[in-house]
Structures are given as structure tokens and as C-alpha cells.
């Protein structure tokens, strides 16, 4: 079972829209930041799940893109989402690809369908593997893995 908060190395920022965990673990591979994905990862630091919304075709975009993959527009706005969704599918990962995750076994990998429509792959925290099911309602928390990167992860809705 993955514990949501380890007292000695995590804390929750109270004023955030959604909880932000400070992850002390090091060695986790971090994403490269670009102009078009930085607000996504930085939004997480403030407890906000933000995605690009294309200014032309109005589609929500994930993963972040330089151009809208549907209509090719370079214009978009960052929109804050509810942070709620459901589990579309999941897997219980006993053998993470990267050694940095061996202390998090099993990793509960999931495709989360956000209430606003887009799907994203993330991990589930705060629940046991046997509790996970397709259709389970979840909400976002953020895991700070680097000073400028907080990853959206999901916990069961209470």
C-alpha cells in the first residue's frame, strides 16, 4: 500500500486548491520544461490542475503541446480544471521501469478520465491495490518531485 503522506518527508500546503505533497525522494526522473508545459507543472506547485485550451477550436489539450494537435493553432489559454475524474483503466506495477520507484512498489498506474474530458496517465495514492476499480472517482493531489515540478496524482474521492 502506498501511504499518502509520510510525516517525516512530506507536508501539505493548506492554501492550495488541491493538496501539494513535498516529496523528499530524489532521483526521480523529471520532465524537461518548455514554454508550453511549464505552467502545467508549475500549476501543480500551487495545487492547481491546469491544461491548455486551444483558443481556436476550444479543445482541451493533454499532454501539453506547442501547437494544438487538432487544429494546429499556436494560441491557447491555461485553464484550471476541477481536478476530479474517474479511473478509466489501471495496472498494479510491481516492477517499475526506473530504479527511483522501487520504494513505491506497487505503483498504482492509472488512466484517469478528467471530468472535463481529457484522459491522462497518472498514479493513484492513498489506496490499496485491491480497492482500485474502473469507474472509481478520484481527485487530484500534487507530488512535488523537483523545485519547479509537481506531478498531478490522484486519490479516491471522499
Amino acid at each position: 500500500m502506498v501511504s499518502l503522506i509520510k510525516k517525516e518527508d512530506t507536508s501539505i500546503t493548506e492554501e492550495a486548491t488541491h493538496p501539494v505533497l513535498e516529496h523528499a525522494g530524489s532521483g526521480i526522473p523529471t520532465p524537461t520544461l518548455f514554454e508550453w508545459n511549464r505552467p502545467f507543472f508549475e500549476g501543480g506547485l500551487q495545487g492547481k490542475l491546469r491544461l491548455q485550451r486551444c483558443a481556436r477550436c476550444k479543445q482541451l489539450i493533454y499532454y501539453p503541446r506547442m501547437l494544438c494537435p487538432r487544429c494546429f493553432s499556436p494560441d491557447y489559454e491555461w485553464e484550471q480544471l476541477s481536478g476530479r475524474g474517474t479511473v478509466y483503466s489501471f495496472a498494479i506495477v510491481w516492477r517499475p521501469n526506473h530504479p527511483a520507484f522501487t520504494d513505491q512498489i506497487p505503483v498504482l498506474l492509472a488512466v484517469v478520465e478528467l471530468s472535463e474530458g481529457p484522459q491522462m496517465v497518472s498514479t493513484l495514492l492513498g489506496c490499496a491495490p485491491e480497492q482500485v476499480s474502473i469507474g472509481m472517482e478520484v481527485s487530484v493531489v500534487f507530488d512535488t518531485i523537483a523545485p519547479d515540478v509537481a506531478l498531478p496524482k490522484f486519490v479516491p474521492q471522499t
Partner: protein
Amino acid sequence: MSPRDPAAKRPFEGNAVIVGYGQTTYHKRPEWSTLQYCIEAVRLALDSCGLSNDDVDGLGVCSFMLPPDNTATLAEHLGMTLTWGYLGTFGGAAQVIGLQRAVRAIEAGDAETVVLVAADAYSVSAHVSLMDDFNSGMREYLIPYGMGGANGLFAMLEQRHRYEYGTTREQLGKLAVTQRRNAGLNPNALLREPMTIEDYLNARVICDPIRLYDCVLPCGGGEAIVVTNVERARTLNRPAIRVLAGGERTNYGPDKLVLLDAGWREFAPTMFEQAGLSRSDIDMVELYDDYPIMELIQLEGLGFCDRGQGGAFVEETDISLTGTLPINTGGGQLSCGQSGAGGGAIGLTEAVMQLQGEAGERQVPNARTALVSGFGMVGYVKGLCQSAVILATE
């Protein structure tokens, strides 16, 4: 979508045929470099049809680990002067796509004789480090989650397929067990010891619902085929294998992450129409089997059964070597091993060997037609590339 109707693609002219194949020894732990596997596979393929390096003017290469070498530098090693080249970047779909490129090039006169090689010195550690930096979508948005490589992604695909369609582990296991039996007749397969359905069902959990025998064994190996024009083929005294039709898609369903339904569904009707065959005319199917669940999705997409019915189809069909639809007659990647990009070519080599009547103990009786399917290049969650060809004896 494209304004052009993809079904309007021009059929192959029938002037390009496959005349030879080569498969190196497979090594559980790679014993050679990727370059060596490439060179050896090319040598074996040319030997099989009595050709040499100076007969070749076209070369296609599919490999994850060949860089910094490439098509041009491999041609230099092989002493070939090329008028045509291809570097396959479609992962496990690349060799089947390369064959279609080669057919067009030969028809156009851009090349007369083409060798297509796919190989890798694919150790477990090479596989793991490749996955960690496979492409930018995966690197930025999946790897930071500890996603378990391809196992995690295909476990989620299987989970959803089972949820939507009631697919069972027993149905998936029939593929793995049948292929293992075929591999027992294939001296080059790495996993030949008999496997029961209980062995499959009770194997160690890797990435629930995926267990050990759902996964392929990374290994060292190389695959190659030789394609030439009909006139040249007549001089070689070898069975010429016709390439009746084919198709490919890249980034089908751009809004989807979990591809229960992929590009095969879109191009299969045109492919069968251009081949002049129906599904029941196909004597064997060589599917891309990185996981059994992908085989079901290919059977569905290629139209052997309805959407979601892949599990039931496999359960009800005799897929053995003497059955109504033999599947992965040499054991596939699940039993032979996955030689990196060579995994996308093993089905093509096997089909050519079968249609040339040289498959030995595992020869499918009276084999006249084969369908070979490719799949590869996992990007953000889904495999981006699908391909297939239909082959036939003359």
C-alpha cells in the same frame, strides 16, 4: 482527418516479390553487437537466394540500437552502393512498412533488389534504458510516474479490454500456450519447454493483470528479407512470394490513449479488397505479439472477428499449425524472444519461410497465403504505428 480518401491508394502492381530470408541465431544474452546482428542477417538472407552484396541497390534498416550507425553506414560496411534506402522509425511496425516501401521503390524502378534488415542486441538492461528515454511524450509525461515501461501501459490496455468485452485470461493464455507449442518445433526459439495453461495463469505477476508469460524476453537477434522484381526473381530458382497488398497507419485516433481499436480497422478492408482475398482465404496469420492482448486487438481490427470478440474468436478457433487459422507459427516473440526492432520482423521472416515451404517440422500444410501484422512505437501511452501485408505464393 486527411481530406484524401485513404482507400483510394493505388494497389501494388505485382512486380515485386520476396525471394529470400535470413534469421540469425537468437541469444538470450546478446553475444554480438547490433551491427553484427544486422550484417549476419543480411548475409544469411542474400545467401538464401544466391545473391551477393553487389546485387543489392536498396537497403532498409530497422533498429533501436544501431545508432550512431544507420542505413548509409551499414551500406558502407556491407559494400553496397545504393540507389534507394529506408530507415524504419516505426518500431515493431517498421519492417512491414519497409516491405511496402520497397515494393513501391521496385515498381518505380528506384531499386531492383532490396534487403530489409531489422535487428538489435537487445539485452534486458538495454531494453530498460531504451524505455526510459524512448521518446519525448513518454519521457516527459510517463517516466516521472514510474510507469513500469511497456508492461504498465499494456496492462492497462488489457484491463480495459477485459472490462469492456469480458475477455478472459484463459483466452489470452491459449495464444501463449499454442505459440509455445509451435516454438517447440523451432530450433531458433529461445523458449521451447512446454507450457500449460496453468503455467500461464499462475505465472509470477509482473504488472497486474500482466504476468510473466504475457511478456517477451529481450534478446539479441536479426531478421532480414530480400525483395526484387519478377524478372530478376525468375533467374534465382527460388519460390517467389508475392506481396498482394498492405496498409499502414501512424497516430490513428489521436484523441485516444487506450487503443482498443487501432489503425488496422481503417485499412484492412482496402487491403483485403486489393489482395482479392477474404479472411477465410488466409492460411496463417503472423501477429505482432508483444503481449497476447495485442493479438486480440489485431484479429479484431483486421476483421477476423467483430470488435471486442477477439477473445471468443481465439477460444473457438483452432489456431494450431494444422488448424483453420494458425497464428504465429514459429512461436512469435512470446516464445522466440524480442530482438528489439527485430521483433517487428520475425513474423515476416516466418511467413516467407512458410510460404517457401522451408519451415521444417512446423510447416503449415499447403500454405499459400499469409497475413503479417506489425505494431510499434509506443508514444504517450499508445502504440502509434500499425501495419500489415498479405503475402501469397505464385
